[in-house]
């Protein structure tokens, strides 16, 4: 018996080592960092314990800009991508013939490198002395003025960021929703059709309640993912996101940690914990709302 018990732990040992060193210990440590004032990473000393790091971060204009950007990004991309993917999945469920082909095409962005394809979006939307870019060509065609979406006005940059984010997150949502729609029992639809139920009524009374758990799963993971936006912004606007006014909260954390403005793990920790608290709060609200509305 003694032998057997040791064996189980032996099999777990590698996982425990890795998780302990790179997950559990850092998790505790990040809280300690965030309360150590004036931490110096070179000498590993600090001169006090308190909430100064939090107050610094909360008063840093770059952080406030990052929070604003992230909130706008979340508020736009989560509803748009969820709604759009629902429409597309409903469309897919109506065309059994080409469904697989379309599904495969739609999934392609999932396997592409965010940084690399972001560059394609950049050249599509950028305005340079040599060319206005393809996006502006379309705008001109409809009689609009050319805009630089990459170095231009704030809302234009935000528009491209939202567009690219939606493009990146759609494959996952379409895939999950299509499989949810496919698992709805056909009998319900047949019964409704025998009763002469209208299409919209079938959707709101049968389809939506039956896929509501999936919808809420997507909304919750969508919120979490959008709050962690970072590489999409880097792909479009380069690594100096503060200068482009396009930084996100996660970007702020990494900038504090490393790079030209880096070397402040305490500030980075405080910002990361603030982000974690925001995400946790929103997730809890989501869960409470879903308890009321989700049909299991």
């Amino acid at each position: 018996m003694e032998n057997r018990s040791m064996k189980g732990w032996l099999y777990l040992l590698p996982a425990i080592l890795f998780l302990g060193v790179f997950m559990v210990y850092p998790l505790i440590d990040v809280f300690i960092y965030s309360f150590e004032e004036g931490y110096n990473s070179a000498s590993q000393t600090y001169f006090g314990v308190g909430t100064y790091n939090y107050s610094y971060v909360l008063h840093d204009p770059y952080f406030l800009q990052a929070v604003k950007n992230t909130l706008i990004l979340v508020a736009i991309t989560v509803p748009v991508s969820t709604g759009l993917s629902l429409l597309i999945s409903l469309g897919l469920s109506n065309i059994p013939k080409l469904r697989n082909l379309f599904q495969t095409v739609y999934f392609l962005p999932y396997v592409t490198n965010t940084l690399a394809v972001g560059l394609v979006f950049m050249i599509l939307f950028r305005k340079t002395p040599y060319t206005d870019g393809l996006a502006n060509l379309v705008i001109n065609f409809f009689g609009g003025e050319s805009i630089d979406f990459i170095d231009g006005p704030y809302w234009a940059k935000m528009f491209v960021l939202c567009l690219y984010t939606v493009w990146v997150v759609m494959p996952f949502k379409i895939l999950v929703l299509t499989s949810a729609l496919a698992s709805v029992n056909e009998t319900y639809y047949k019964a409704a059709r025998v009763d002469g139920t209208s299409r919209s009524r079938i959707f709101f009374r049968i389809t939506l309640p039956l896929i509501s758990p999936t919808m809420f799963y997507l909304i919750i993971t969508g919120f979490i993912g959008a709050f962690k936006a970072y590489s999409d912004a880097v792909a479009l606007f380069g690594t100096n996101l503060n200068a482009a006014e396009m930084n996100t909260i996660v970007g702020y954390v990494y900038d504090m940690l490393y790079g030209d403005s880096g070397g402040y793990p305490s500030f980075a920790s405080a910002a990361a914990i603030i982000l974690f608290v925001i995400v946790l709060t929103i997730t809890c609200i989501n869960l409470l709302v879903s308890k009321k509305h989700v049909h299991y």
Partner: protein
Amino acid sequence: MGKSMDFEKIERGARRSERVRNTIIYVLLGIWALVVLFPFYWMVLSSVKSYSAYNAEYIPQLFTLSPTLQNYADAFTAVPLAKYFLNTLIFTVITTAVMMIVTVLAAFAFARLDFPGKNIAFVIFLSLMMIPNELVIITNFVTITNLDLRNTFLGLILPSITSVFYIYLLKENFAQVPDELYYAAKVDATSDFKYLWKVMIPICRPTLVTITILKVIECWNSYVWPRLITDDPNYYLVSNGIQEIRENGFGRENIPAMMSAVVVISVPLILLFLIFHKKIMAGVARGGTKG
């Protein structure tokens, strides 16, 4: 007579409205397919336009009549693209291989072995799934820096190995293997390790393949950790490499060459996807996350 005419008329009307509806659906789905595919088309197109032709186009052309592969040659000679590629390959292969070993062993312990404290350990493992990477990356950065592992493969790989979710996924799959097989193997005095190697792994191969592919995609596209831990271009992975090309690039701004670099680093995963698309999509539907 009149009645049957009515039926026909109604049926024809219904069929027509059905056809109109389907056409609209096809058009809308086609538009989205265009939105998805267009960036890929544009990246390939720009990569085969010559430098002078590209810069001469004030209005971008939607096709080119004189494609050239010169940009690809530039991408491999003017910037160390091959080096980035090789680095990413090494990083991906080692990380995935070590992670698979760790994951298989842990999943086997949870699914098959009995030992005191197993349930508590499993609950702790599950709760670790909720820890966001952003929280732990700060200390990991300090740890790796203090260990003097910046700009080494070891520093890149070690923290990338942990993935609780795959342990959970594999454990669920292992648990579906009938107990009878285990007892039969025990009667034949097979060791646990041999049972894992000869029975469990072959039976659960589809899940193992899925996990491997998902991890390969994750490694190939990873950006944040490599960026923090490497500032020596000799250790850049493709994501950092492409960012470096964008910012310091080819001496002058050379979009066609940049696009050919983008094509080169996108092709391996797209090939992988075309071969394994059923497996990848099924695996992601079961529990991948992104966005």
